[in-house]
Structures are given as structure tokens and as C-alpha cells.
């Protein structure tokens, strides 16, 4: 302890500076900017795959990447909200499919006007979220159990309602197929669905970072009892998160029609795991209260980049699964490490 200096204050500063090793500084940086690590990973992914096959970063491939990411990215918005409150949603895909099948069936079979059919589907998504929310906040069941149950219920309802049949886009009104329409900027094609998803990120991202509702979502995920004692209506906030998520899944279902060119009750079977993967790789903590939407968007892009990159590299598709699995474990380990930060 022989720090030579004129004043005690300077000595303390000297010590404070010495304490920060490179690893601590990185830890601190990642702690303050949770989207930083997924951003770096995405950059590395793109660079590596481009080196392997230069076609990876040409505009056509990139626009395909964006379009293929859109549906999971939309679902992951709702999933992020729920994981921020330390919950988990296994019914994401089921709600999107149910909402989509009801919209498509009403329009194609029952002759409802497209706008009305779409509104009915979105309201159904909201109602499904409300059901999850009620079960979590009123009965106090763990989100995992609630959504495990509603996953089966909504999946069954979608199959029963649609008779297990897909509805091709030539039988659907223009409004429902609109999410698949698009325009080209050079060789980069943008669909309405992609724009809607970007809109979702902007609106929900704004609500999370700029409104008191967003603050409360983080506070409730962080420590629900502390939030309650601080005057936050924890249960109400939690409920609103499930309801909003349900509506978002409904919108995701609409973009899925455009993407898939049909409304099929057997679409996006991996939606639950893919949305959770995107959120986790995106740096949002499964323990709640930490993370954000930007990371989720990057996380969704990373997963899709692996899919496209590996197939362009001529690698067996199963390696993609392996790579994503490794990424998830790395991401959660990084989260654990970051949580130990002390300034």
C-alpha cells in the first residue's frame, strides 16, 4: 500500500483506477449497454460468413435475411416484454397461429370483410394474452405453467377451428396478403410485413424506454415487491404486459400470412424456442429487469444469419442448431457474469 501522492484524494483515485482491469471494464460496459454483445456477435457472424461465401452479404441475401427474421422478430417483441418481467411465454406461436387461422377462415370461408376479419383475429390475440395475464396475476400460477397449458389449448383450438386445413393466399383478400407485398430498393426487397415489424420495435421500444409504463415493466421484473412498495401497481403492470404481448402475437400472425403465402395451422412450429432464443441471445436476462428490444432484434437476426450463412457455406443444416445452442449457453453465461458487476 505504498501509493505515493500528495493528497489522500489522489491516492484513492489512483487505487480506483488500478482496480479497473480490462475484464472489469468490459464487464461494466456490457452491463451498461446490454445490446453491445449481440451487436458484436452479429457483426462477427456477417463478416465470417461473407469471408466464407461473398454472396452472403449481397443485397438479395440480406433482404432474404431480414424477411425471414421478421416473423420471429415480431413474436420476440412480446416475448421480450414477458421475459423482462421474469416470466416466460410458451404460447407465443400458438396465439399467433390461432389469431391467424381465425382471421383467414373468417375472410375466406365466412365471407367477412378483410378489415373486420383482421380486427377479429387481433382482438382474439389480445384476449388470449388477457387469459394468460389473468391466470398469472389473479390465480398466481407461474408463467411457465400457464403458458404451457395455453400452448396446448390454443394449438388445439386453431386445429379444431381450421379443421387442420391450410388456406392458400389466392383465397385470401388483399389486406391479409398485403404483409407479403413489397417494393425494391435496388436489389434489396422490403415487404410491408418487415415495415410493420420495424414499426412494432419502434413503438414498443419507445414505450419501454420513454414512458413510465416501461420503467414499471423493468421495476416489476427486477423486484416485484420492491416495485409494489414503491407505489407501482405490480399486478396491473404484469397483466398489461401479457395483454400487449397477445396483441403483438396477433400482428405477428398477420405478417406470417404474407411471409408464408398461406395461413397454415402447422406453421412456425419452432416459434416458441426461436423467440426465446432471440431474446436470450439479445442479452435480456431470464431473471427479469434487464435487457431490451434492440438486443432482441439483433438476437433474431443472429439466429437467421446462422441459418442462411451455413446453408450458403454448404454446411449441413443440423450444424445451425448446434451453433444456436452454443450461442444460447454463451449468452446466458455472459448475462450471469455481467450480473456480478460492481462499479
Amino acid at each position, binding site marked *: 500500500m505504498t501509493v505515493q501522492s500528495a493528497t489522500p484524494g489522489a491516492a484513492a483515485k489512483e487505487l480506483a483506477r488500478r482496480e479497473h482491469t480490462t475484464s472489469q471494464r468490459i464487464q461494466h460496459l456490457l452491463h451498461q449497454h446490454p445490446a453491445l454483445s449481440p451487436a458484436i456477435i452479429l457483426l462477427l457472424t456477417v463478416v465470417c460468413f461473407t469471408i466464407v461465401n461473398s454472396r452472403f452479404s449481397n443485397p438479395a441475401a440480406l433482404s432474404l435475411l431480414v424477411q425471414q427474421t421478421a416473423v420471429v422478430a415480431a413474436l420476440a417483441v412480446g416475448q421480450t416484454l414477458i421475459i423482462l418481467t421474469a416470466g416466460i411465454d410458451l404460447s407465443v406461436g400458438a396465439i399467433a397461429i390461432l389469431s391467424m387461422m381465425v382471421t383467414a377462415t373468417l375472410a375466406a370461408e365466412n365471407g367477412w370483410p378483410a378489415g373486420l376479419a383482421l380486427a377479429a383475429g387481433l382482438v382474439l390475440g389480445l384476449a388470449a394474452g388477457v387469459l394468460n395475464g389473468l391466470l398469472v396475476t389473479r390465480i398466481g400460477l407461474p408463467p411457465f405453467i400457464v403458458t404451457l397449458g395455453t400452448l396446448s389449448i390454443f394449438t388445439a383450438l386453431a386445429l379444431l377451428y381450421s379443421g387442420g386445413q391450410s388456406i392458400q393466399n389466392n383465397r385470401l383478400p388483399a389486406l391479409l396478403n398485403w404483409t407479403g407485398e413489397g417494393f425494391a430498393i435496388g436489389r434489396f426487397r422490403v415487404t410491408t410485413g418487415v415495415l410493420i415489424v420495424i414499426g412494432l420495435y419502434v413503438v414498443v421500444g*419507445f414505450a419501454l424506454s*420513454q*414512458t*413510465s*409504463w416501461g*420503467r*414499471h415493466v*423493468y*421495476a416489476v421484473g*427486477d*423486484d416485484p*415487491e*420492491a*416495485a*409494489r*412498495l*414503491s*407505489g*407501482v*401497481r405490480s399486478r396491473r403492470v404484469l397483466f398489461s404486459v401479457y395483454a400487449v404481448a397477445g396483441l403483438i402475437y396477433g400482428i405477428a400472425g398477420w405478417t406470417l400470412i404474407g411471409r408464408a403465402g398461406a395461413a397454415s395451422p402447422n406453421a412456425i412450429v419452432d416459434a416458441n424456442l426461436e423467440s426465446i432464443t432471440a431474446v436470450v441471445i439479445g442479452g435480456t436476462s431470464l431473471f427479469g*429487469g*434487464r435487457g431490451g428490444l434492440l438486443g432482441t432484434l439483433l438476437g433474431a437476426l443472429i439466429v437467421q444469419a446462422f441459418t442462411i450463412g451455413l446453408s450458403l457455406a454448404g454446411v449441413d443444416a443440423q450444424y445451425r442448431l448446434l451453433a444456436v445452442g452454443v450461442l444460447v449457453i454463451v449468452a446466458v453465461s455472459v448475462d450471469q457474469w455481467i450480473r456480478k*458487476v*460492481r*462499479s
Partner: protein
Amino acid sequence: MTATINQPGDTALQVPILSARGLVKTFGRVIGLDGVDLDLFPGEVLAVIGDNGAGKSTLIKCLTGALIPDAGQLTLEQAPITFRGPQDARAAGIETVYQTLAVAPALDIASNLYLGREERRPGLLGNVFRMLDHRGMRDRAAAAVRELGIQTIQNIQQTVETLSGGQRQAVAVARAAAFGSKVVVLDEPTAALGVKESNQVLDMIKGLRERGLPVILISHNMPHVWEVADRIHIQRLGRCAGVITPDSHTMTEGVAIMTGAANLEDNTST
């Protein structure tokens, strides 16, 4: 000690700002409160002392909406009132530092100070887009922390989890002091604090009293209690064992009543 206005004699002439009658709170078969009365008069510091598990925290939680009493009546400024949750008590001007501190670790200091009462930007951005006034809240939070004389907190945007236990306590106290408009309740606010910081909190309590704000202070530190309290509510086994003042009883006598070694006969004021 110049501001001591509430001698046991004249409390009868005054109207309590907050009072509770017959508060009962049970947790399954555990009796937390067994019919407790409490009066808080304007501009006084009322200390609540008692052994561990005597029901002090349960009592103030019932007063501040954190717990709903099974029975009993609360009166705020002579009007009966019921709190459905902490937010109701806060809205009524009762600000509390709970024993568990109730801060959100991942949020920064400024967000914690304003948690549950965020301020929006003026104009369209605030009214229509409900946008928060981040900068304004940050500046006012910094001022509130500075006012308390908490020098150890350097950055108001630091997350609370990176603070020491004492600094967290200081944040919780700053929040209560900054927002309390009728009553400030402090459940062991100096438990994790050093000597200097404890004295700052005691000075703050005296400052609140000078502003005319009544304070309920729970503490195990008898010298502190005898230094700042106007009256002392002794809680024992879920009941009130009596109310004394630092002048009517010595610390030893107070502790004797608290532990049941002595009884309070003639000095009960209510």
C-alpha cells in the same frame, strides 16, 4: 430540542394528523398486531421501539398501505381512510422507507427516486406520447441527494445494485424526505449506516420536524431515539405496551418496559 411541542399533557388538546384504532393483523396463526392504537401529532417525531418480532414493521405497514389490516380503523386528518395499496398512501402524502428498502436494483438512483411517480415532459410529448422528463428527474434527484448531504454518491445515473448497503439506505431515505408531504415513516433508516451518515439522517429527521412534517421512526438504537423523539411508542408482543417521552422515562426504564421487565402504569397518555 427546542422544537419539542408535544408534551404528554398537551397531546390531548391537539388533533392527530394520522391515527389508528384497534389495528389487528394476523399471518395465518401468527399474530402480528393485536389491537394497536397509535396517534401521530403534527410536527412531532414519534419513535416506535420494541424487540425483534414485536410488530413494529407490521404496524407501519398497516399505516402505509403495504399491508391491509384485518381489523381497525385509520384516520388521516380526521377523515377515515383505507389504503388499498402503497400507492394510495403515497398519494395521500405518506412516504415510507421500508425495512427492506424497496428499491429496484437494476434501475438507476434517479429512476428509483421517481419510481411510481415519474414526471412527464411538458406539452405534446408528455401529454400525447407520455414521454418521461428524464433530464428533469435526474436533476431534481441529484438535488434531493445533495440536499441530504450524501456525498458518497457520485453519479445519480449509477444503478442501485452497484451501491453499498448504506448508500442504498441513503437513497431510500432521500426518496422519502423529498416526497413526503404529510407524514414520513422510517423503518430502521440507520441500520446500515456509519456514524456520520446516521447523524445526517438524524439531522434530516429534525429538519423534517422543523418543516412541520411529522415522522414515525422505528429504531433499535436507543440513544438515537432518545435524541430525536418527542414521544416513544413501545411495541411488545404485537401490542402497545405504552407511550412514553424521553423526559418522562430514562432509556433504562424504556428498555425495561420494552422487554417486559417493568410495566407502565401511570404515564400512558392515551
